[in-house]
């Protein structure tokens, strides 16, 4: 092809690839000779394991939750294999029980734990700073600043892990995971596997064993502090403008370098333990110091504890990314300089465009139905179905953490006021979230005789992170067939009575509504399992699309309340009913190119104005045009 020939071939012998931070970490995991890798999906960490799974010679798995994934990786290092584990920031809250003790045992082969913080909250319930784990667990922690460093630091982390026999934390943020840059890559080097050596003093953590390991942990930390003083991961970049010396790490380094090209910068790659001696020497070369770190003042606080005078979160925000647009004005104020006169364009006012559920999503029917229930408190969970809190459903009242819908529902039940004694408590949870952390909560509901109706939305995928497989999907990380959990048997085994367990098609609105009404009246735990697949996975099969017969649409707007993005309003009107009440009308069309024929909008449509696209080939008799009044939502 002549046009393709216009592109020059890559000039260098070394392979240089455009990679996201997640891809770069995965590549380095392969190069490092890792043999076992495990993770539970979570934004922005998900793609690390997805990419690792594409390389040969590594056992990879989607684990049931982050704690199990870390235990699997730890087990593999005891067996002498280099191993890798990845999770989002909140995942480490789940995994930390294992983490806090494996710092005592240490590791027999390299173990790197990548924790991806969602700085800027693109898709998370909080913005916690995972760098605390290094301090809490006395583990070394590395912070790459771009894709190349994500690759290089992963390799360095394995080397450090084996030299100090310690798990190493690789701390990433969204701005590393999801940024693409050019990366020089290498090839895999295989490593001999030593095998498991029995040693109860090392591997059995009971008080006697743990007490022998505690001093070793602190001795290791002392040696790591010496290491930090000479580590090539910590670099001083001198600069001519010495009014402020910057101490920074991670992606914030790039923002600092971009904003203040002439300033001296201490770039920390190994950020725990800190190289205090070198930092003190750096302080001597600058008039004042500013610590730029995302997001909490960890480095700053430790430097202050060392008696150093630094600025940090006194002038920089405690929340979100420290991009050039944040840094430049803050530093100008610190230096007492006038703010740059560059007139900043004001963003134009445009409607918000929040994420929404997909066309034909099986959750649409569930939330449409929940929105019809009265006197109900809905305890939600983490996943696509969290979106049910928003318009038009407004049918999710609380959301906290993975699996929390169960325990919170029981607490809402047990702690209810006298006024709310007839309030129905419903918990909504997805298949993978249920298996991750929810099933223990359901066991608690059953054991403690709670009055909660559980909606278990089984769509056979971890939808929000892109449809990953899990023990409920019947496929493994490679898409190969795997044992599939039977939710009905599982919830019965947890003690939910067989009569109280129902499986329902999420598109059968009347059945769903009837079941929900019935089960919320019965004062004992019940579970309603919906069983239609996520529309983004291959189990979903699109059906014939629908369209609206324009002349039959009465403008009632009931179909709009389903919340399907394929339904569009073509015209609005306001009419006065015979009763004198004013009613807003919304006439609709269906974007047939997007419609996959789930039929959810048919049920609320009184005039049967919604028909299969093909059916419209026959002429439509105009029955009532514009004159007859609509069935309003209040009439349902």
């Amino acid at each position: 092809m002549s046009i393709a020939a216009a592109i020059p071939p890559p000039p260098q012998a070394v392979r240089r690839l455009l990679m996201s931070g997640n891809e770069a970490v995965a590549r380095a995991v392969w190069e490092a000779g890792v043999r076992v890798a495990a993770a539970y999906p979570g934004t922005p960490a998900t793609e690390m394991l997805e990419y690792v799974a594409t390389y040969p010679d590594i056992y990879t798995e989607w684990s049931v939750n982050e704690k199990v994934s870390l235990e699997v990786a730890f087990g593999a290092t005891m067996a002498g294999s280099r191993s890798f584990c990845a999770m989002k920031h909140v995942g480490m809250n789940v995994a930390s029980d294992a983490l806090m003790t494996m710092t005592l045992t240490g590791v027999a082969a390299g173990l790197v734990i990548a924790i991806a913080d969602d700085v800027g909250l693109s898709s998370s319930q909080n913005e916690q700073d995972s760098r605390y784990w290094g301090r809490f667990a006395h583990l070394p922690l590395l912070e790459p600043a771009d894709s190349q460093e994500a690759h290089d630091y992963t390799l360095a982390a394995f080397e450090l892990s084996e030299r100090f026999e310690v798990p190493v934390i690789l701390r990433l943020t969204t701005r590393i995971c999801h940024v693409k840059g050019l990366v020089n890559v290498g090839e895999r080097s295989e490593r001999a596997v030593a095998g498991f050596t029995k040693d109860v003093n090392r591997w059995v953590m009971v008080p006697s064993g743990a007490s022998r390991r505690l001093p070793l942990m602190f001795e290791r930390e002392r040696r790591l502090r010496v290491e930090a003083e000479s580590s090539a991961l910590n670099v001083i970049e001198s600069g001519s403008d010495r009014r402020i010396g910057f101490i920074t790490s991670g992606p914030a380094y790039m923002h600092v370098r971009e904003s203040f090209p002439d300033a001296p910068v201490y770039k920390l790659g190994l950020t725990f333990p800190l190289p205090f001696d070198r930092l003190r020497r750096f302080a001597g070369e600058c008039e004042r110091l500013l610590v730029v770190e995302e997001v909490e003042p960890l480095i700053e606080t430790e430097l202050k504890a060392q008696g150093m005078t630094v600025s940090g979160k006194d002038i920089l925000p405690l929340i979100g990314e420290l991009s050039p647009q944040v840094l430049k004005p803050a530093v100008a104020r610190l230096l007492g300089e006038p703010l740059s006169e560059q007139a900043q364009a004001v963003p134009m006012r445009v409607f918000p465009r929040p994420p929404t559920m997909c066309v034909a999503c099986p959750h649409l029917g569930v939330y449409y139905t929940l929105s019809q229930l009265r006197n109900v408190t809905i305890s939600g969970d983490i996943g696509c179905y969290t979106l049910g809190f928003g318009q038009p459903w407004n049918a999710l009242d609380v959301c906290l953490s993975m699996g929390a819908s169960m325990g919170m529902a029981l607490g809402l039940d047990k702690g209810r006021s006298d006024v709310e004694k007839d309030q129905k408590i419903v918990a909504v949870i997805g298949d993978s979230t249920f298996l991750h952390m929810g099933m223990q909560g359901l066991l608690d509901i059953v054991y403690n005789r709670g009055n909660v109706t559980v909606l278990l939305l089984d769509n056979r995928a971890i939808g929000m992170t892109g449809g990953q497989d899990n023990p409920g999907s019947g496929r493994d990380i490679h898409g190969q067939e795997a044992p599939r959990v039977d939710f009905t048997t599982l919830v019965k085994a947890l003690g939910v009575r067989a009569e109280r367990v129902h499986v329902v098609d999420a598109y059968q609105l009347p059945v769903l509504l009837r079941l929900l009404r019935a089960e919320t009246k019965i004062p004992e735990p019940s579970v309603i399992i919906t069983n239609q697949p996520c529309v983004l996975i291959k189990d979903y099969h699109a059906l014939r699309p629908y369209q609206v017969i324009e002349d039959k649409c009465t403008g009632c707007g009931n179909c709009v309340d389903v919340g399907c993005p394929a339904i569009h309003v073509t015209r609005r009107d306001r009419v006065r009913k015979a009763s004198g009440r004013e009613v807003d009308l919304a006439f609709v069309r269906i974007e047939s190119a997007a419609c996959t024929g789930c039929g959810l909008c048919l049920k609320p449509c009184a005039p049967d104005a919604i028909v299969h696209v093909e059916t419209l080939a026959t002429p439509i008799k105009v029955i009532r045009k514009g004159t007859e009044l609509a069935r309003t939502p209040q009439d349902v």
Partner: protein
Amino acid sequence: MSETGRFDTTNILVVGTGGQGVMTATEILAEAAIALGHDVKKTEVAGMAQRGGVVSSHLRFGAKVLSPQITPGTANVLLGFEAAEAMRWRHMLRPEGLVLMNTGRLVPPIVELGLYDYPDDPVAAMRAAGTQVFSFDASRIAQELGDIRLGNTVMLGAISDHLPFPAEVLEGCILKRFAHKKAALVELNQRAFAAGRAAAEAAAKAEAA
């Protein structure tokens, strides 16, 4: 070209909604810049982009790129895949920057529900604010070619004459993606690219007139 840090960097902002192919288009632009020996960084503010939300993809290239993010007021070109989304990100553009935008609209449920209004005329609003806008209906062009998914090739065709490298380099990067697929698909994308290029040119002439 913008001057941030020590290096001259070209900033291109590609915006739209989840599912429109914004991120793929930016990836192809990045590949073209790499093919010409530039350092490149590409980043997204995507949120839960797969769920129809706002997507803005930042591409920066030059001798060496540091921060991956384009700061407000420094984008050279804003490539808008959806009319209101182009308007949402106008403030990212340099005063002398250029907006190349699809006039096609994707109306979200929140507007269908009557909670918010879609802007009456995004192109006029941006021009009134002093921005140079080349607009065209890329959605219709793609549909006329037979597949709405050709929209991102149409958009890339539109930007191809407003880059610091020849349009042919970008076209080559697009077609390379279809090299292992049917010849008809290659030809279809060639036509989409040419149509986008022509649409931007026509819009530029109309703007000049």
